[in-house]
């Protein structure tokens, strides 16, 4: 376990370094933030002074080294646009995104896993066909269309729920529903495949043969062993959860990290983009490590050497 965690940590540092380098090179080799921040008729002296103050004239490797030295001290610089520390801005928006993503994953798991088990247990029944087909439709539906259609139905037509903003529980319903629906299809299909695989194993047939209750065979013998691929899928989907939340946050004007980053990219607000990318990458690495550790817990045969 300790060896695994050390190796994981080293790999994470390499990935984070590569990512920061990539994003740093990309944002810095592109447009000039000074042009966006100063009025178009600013004098060359003003432009020069401003560039000098932001350290934009130094060679790229030097700027990257400076960025990295500050970053390890949790300092990503000041937002060019808002004048506040970039990391503080990111930290301030993070809870909103985590709330949205957390609820969406929870709803998707609470619905998707039982539905997947049902389709596997009642294989080739009407339920199976209906749910599996719906899952495929769900996987093929653009997440932003679901969002806009839910606004059309629940906000414009029925006037039950607010179409944008945040604050109350009612504001959560549509964004969480949209994002959860986006995850649901894949989860149902993975659960179904995993359960079908396990239900065919000798120990499950043995349990049935000795007269064990169907309920106990399904949930105690089969389900526990089918959870491993399902947990993997949830871990892999976290990337899509955060990606999908960028779009969901845009549709519903949800004040999360995704919207902050999209706006920062439009405005070429480098420090905020870099802090945001760093935070998201760190979050995903943490989730993936947690998924790997949970394997060992779900299946004692797996050793994290």
């Amino acid at each position: 376990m300790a060896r695994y965690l050390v190796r994981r940590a080293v790999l994470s540092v390499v990935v984070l370094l590569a990512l920061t380098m990539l994003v740093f090179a990309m944002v810095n080799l592109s447009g000039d933030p000074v042009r966006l921040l100063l009025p178009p008729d600013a004098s060359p002296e003003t432009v020069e002074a401003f560039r000098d103050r932001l350290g934009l004239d130094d060679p790229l490797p030097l700027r990257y080294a400076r960025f990295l030295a500050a970053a390890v001290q949790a300092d990503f610089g000041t937002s060019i646009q808002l004048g506040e520390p970039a990391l503080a801005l990111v930290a301030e928006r993070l809870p909103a995104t985590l709330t949205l993503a957390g609820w969406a994953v929870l709803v998707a798991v609470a619905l998707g896993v039982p539905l997947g088990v049902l389709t596997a247990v009642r294989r080739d029944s009407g339920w199976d066909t209906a749910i599996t087909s719906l899952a495929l439709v769900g996987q093929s539906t653009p997440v932003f269309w679901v969002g806009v259609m839910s606004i059309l139905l629940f906000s414009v037509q029925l006037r039950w729920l607010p179409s944008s903003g945040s604050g109350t529980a009612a504001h959560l319903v549509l964004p969480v529903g949209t994002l959860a629906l986006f995850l649901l299809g894949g989860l149902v299909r993975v659960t179904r495949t995993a359960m079908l695989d396990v239900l065919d194993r000798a120990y499950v047939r043995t349990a049935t043969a000795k007269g064990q209750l169907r309920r106990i065979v399904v949930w105690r013998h089969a389900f526990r062993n089918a959870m491993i691929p399902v947990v993997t899928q949830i871990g892999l989907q976290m990337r899509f959860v955060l990606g999908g939340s960028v779009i969901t946050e845009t549709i519903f004007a949800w004040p999360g990290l995704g919207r902050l980053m999209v706006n920062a990219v439009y405005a070429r607000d480098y420090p905020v983009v870099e802090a945001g990318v760093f935070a998201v990458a760190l979050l995903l690495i943490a989730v993936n490590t947690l998924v790997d550790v949970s394997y060992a817990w779900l299946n004692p045969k797996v050793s994290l050497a």
Partner: protein
Amino acid sequence: MNRTWRRWWRRGRTRGALAVLGVIVFAALAAPLYPRDPTDQDLRATFAPPGTVSDAGAFYPLGTDELGRDLAARLLHGTRASLGVGAAALALALTVGTLLGLLAGYFGGWVDAVVTGATETLMTLPFILLAIAVIAAVGASETVLILTLGLTGWVSFAKLVRAKTFELREEAFVLAAHALGVRSPGVMARHLLPNVAPLLLVDGTLQFGALVLAEAGLSFLGLGVPPPTPTLGGVLAGGQTFLAVAWWISTLPGLVLLAMVLAINLLGDTLRDALAPGG
């Protein structure tokens, strides 16, 4: 192989998916033949519901938007853009992914370490954040969009090909080819690639659906092919403001996307059942 294909072709799902895709591809190819241009405005017929005949006698089968532009024309051209960008990005991703996967699986060592490192890094970040950073940095255009989708979409192909190559390179037929003096590029092209091809066909079809959705998502955020070229995602986003007065502007492009991606995914499913059972 022949029997496999025949059984595949006999399935209702296969034919249904191919029929829907056929209609959509035909509509996309024939888009320029539609009598109205997608940017033509008719300011006396704004927000016309589907099926409207304007006072001037113009027929709008799917209605018009806030500038009186024909939604049918916009959807036809948008579908064309979606399929074009998706296909080009898929070709690029397939090429890069197959090449890197073959090299990594065949040579192992540091080549493998570099390729695996790159895939791990790309898989750590949500694709959309990478795409947003790239597109904001160099500006949105059709070429940039294809390059971004293609150069981030190769990861799954590389992983697939690498794993399969790794498994095959100690097989007798590969060792025999070596013994007969076939050089490495020859072994990869003539002996390894044909064995990976069925897997690539399955994964490529499913990835195509994902790429079309990704393109639509970026267009929705305003980062796709820039106006005046209509895109399905762009038309959908434009309609969100007018949901209360004109439901059709946002609803219809989503339905087109859904039909297109559903048919692609269904086709991928039938191919997987036929070529890579259990996979």
